């Protein structure tokens, strides 16, 4: 090979390398553009229908009169109860796995099981909820059955996030507490949990936003799509924002698709508020503790 040949070979190699870098950058920019396009399309369709009466009306046969009030109230009930159930159980399980369970087959079995549950499709949880809560426990199509089903969906997420937060607490804190004569639970309650609280809160908020957007398990247990009342107790029938959006989007009239877009704006706004508060918690309280 002559000198000029190796030179052109090198130049070609360098060009290929640059081109590849450009290609990878392009795919990343593409991801960003797609997100912008998606949001723009939703706002374009939904904005005209996003009025004050849309937020206070009940569903209607007429697109102009359709409202989202029952779905919104139902969703509040659902995520409130889901948080109430999933936080104590999820954090409890995480504390058990991180602070109590010794490295054993039992521990790795539970851990593997949680990882697997996180990968089970949410519609399968819906079938479980239908068989277990709606039929076997005879809760019927109630807010409570919906919240319990959603609890099972988000539980693996809460447990994994809480475990990560607990793991981030340095062992020196535990050691110092034990050295002062604290029992295990005193150590956990007064030292480990407060220190890991920002991390746990962030994980919980993300899990609850997941519950807010979940429609499949609720459709499977029989969420209503046409409610002319708002649920007032845990035994009432329920709808949910994503379920209502699904119903509107699946109707043939174009106007109802725009109503669905307005519903999506409401849903996304709630999600943004929740995620922003997660970022705030991480930022505000995460800074106070420095090891």
């Amino acid at each position, binding site marked *: 090979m002559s000198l000029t040949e190796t030179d052109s070979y090198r130049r070609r*190699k360098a060009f290929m*390398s640059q081109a*590849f*870098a450009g290609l*990878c*950058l*392009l*795919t*990343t920019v*593409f*991801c*960003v553009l797609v*997100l912008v*396009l998606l949001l723009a*399309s*939703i706002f374009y369709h939904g904005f005209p229908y996003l009025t004050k009466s849309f937020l206070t009306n009940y569903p209607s046969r007429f697109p102009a009169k359709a409202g989202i009030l029952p779905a919104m109230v139902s969703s509040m009930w659902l995520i409130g109860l889901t948080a109430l159930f999933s936080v*104590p159980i*999820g954090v409890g*399980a995480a504390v*058990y796995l*991180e602070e109590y369970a*010794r*490295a054993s087959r039992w521990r790795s079995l*539970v*851990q593997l099981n949680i*990882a*697997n549950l*996180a*990968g*089970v*499709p949410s*519609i*399968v949880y*819906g*079938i*479980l909820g239908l*068989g277990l809560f709606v039929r076997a426990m005879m809760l019927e199509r109630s807010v409570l059955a919906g919240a319990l089903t959603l609890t099972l969906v988000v*539980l693996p997420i809460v447990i*994994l996030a809480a*475990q990560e937060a607990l*793991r981030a607490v340095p*062992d020196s804190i*535990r050691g110092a507490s*034990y050295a002062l004569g604290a*029992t*295990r639970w005193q150590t956990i309650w007064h030292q480990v949990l407060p220190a890991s609280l920002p991390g746990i809160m962030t994980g919980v908020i*993300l899990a609850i*936003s997941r519950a807010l*957007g979940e*429609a*499949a398990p609720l*459709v499977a247990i029989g969420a209503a799509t046409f409610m002319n009342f708002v649920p007032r107790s845990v035994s009432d029938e329920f709808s949910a924002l*994503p379920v209502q*959006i*699904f119903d509107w989007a699946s109707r043939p009239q174009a106007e109802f*698709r725009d109503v669905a*877009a307005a519903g*999506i704006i409401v*849903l*996304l706004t709630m999600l943004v508020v929740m995620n922003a508060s997660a970022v705030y918690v991480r930022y505000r309280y995460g800074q106070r503790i420095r090891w």
Partner: protein
Amino acid sequence: MSFDATGIGKASKWAAIGASSPPGRWGERLIHLVLLACAFVSILTTVGIVLVLVVEAGQFFREVSIVGFLTATKWTPLFRPQHFGILPLFCGTMLVSIGAILVALPIGLGSAIYLSEYASNPAREVVKPILEILAGIPSVVFGFLALVLVSPMIRSVFPSANVFNAASASIVVGFMILPMIVSLSEDVLRSVPLSLREAAYALGATKLDVTVKVVLPAAISGIVASFLLAISRAIGETMAVALAAGASPKLTLNPLESIQTMTAYIVQVSQGDTPAGSIEYRTIFAVGLALFVVTMTLNILAQWFVSRMREKYE
């Protein structure tokens, strides 16, 4: 959002200490038991899923043979004559999932390589939150977008395409699983030791050579794991495909046709008024069981690949 595929960390070293609480402290023991019960809920959930699916599907298989269910090519449980062959639903599911992977894998892998090998820190700070936003958008929103945005685009290129078609579902599901592929693949690419890259550079390799011939092969088991987890997510994806892909179960490989997936079928039955205990009602448990087995197999396989990757570099 983190995607720890196995989540198997190391137990705190303090877990072993103080395991024997002082005998007088019954409160400590009670708390231990309560926390154990919390962890047990996750085991009970798995047992519950398996029991509910197997018991109800067992009733179904008394009337329909398993072999017929798995091999017959017609699925018409909701009208007569009834046929219970899951192949059309399975075919629809695979059509959508493979299409989704074809969309997500090149883009996702490209972005992961960019983020791990090329991006400056400020660029990462911008792109990562955007991917998190994409990951946080609910499924039903993607379904809506498939209907109002993607499907019209497809129909303007292929006028013969149905309003509801597998391709539009594939594309949106592809974007739903994209953040997962990027996040998991970027993690494994970053976990490839720097020494491997430096050795290649020392031999005169360009950045392209290093990335494609050294880093990618070293991270291949992790990338395969992310691919398997993503396809499992796509198979279980429900609301987007229920809205976009249609409700006509058929054996076809044409992505422009209306099809039905296993998940969309479950939604369709749930929306109607099928009386509990009827064979139509039990079909959703049989389909659910098939869905559970397929996704679980893929998840376990993915975990095996992840643990192989860990053994290699940790």
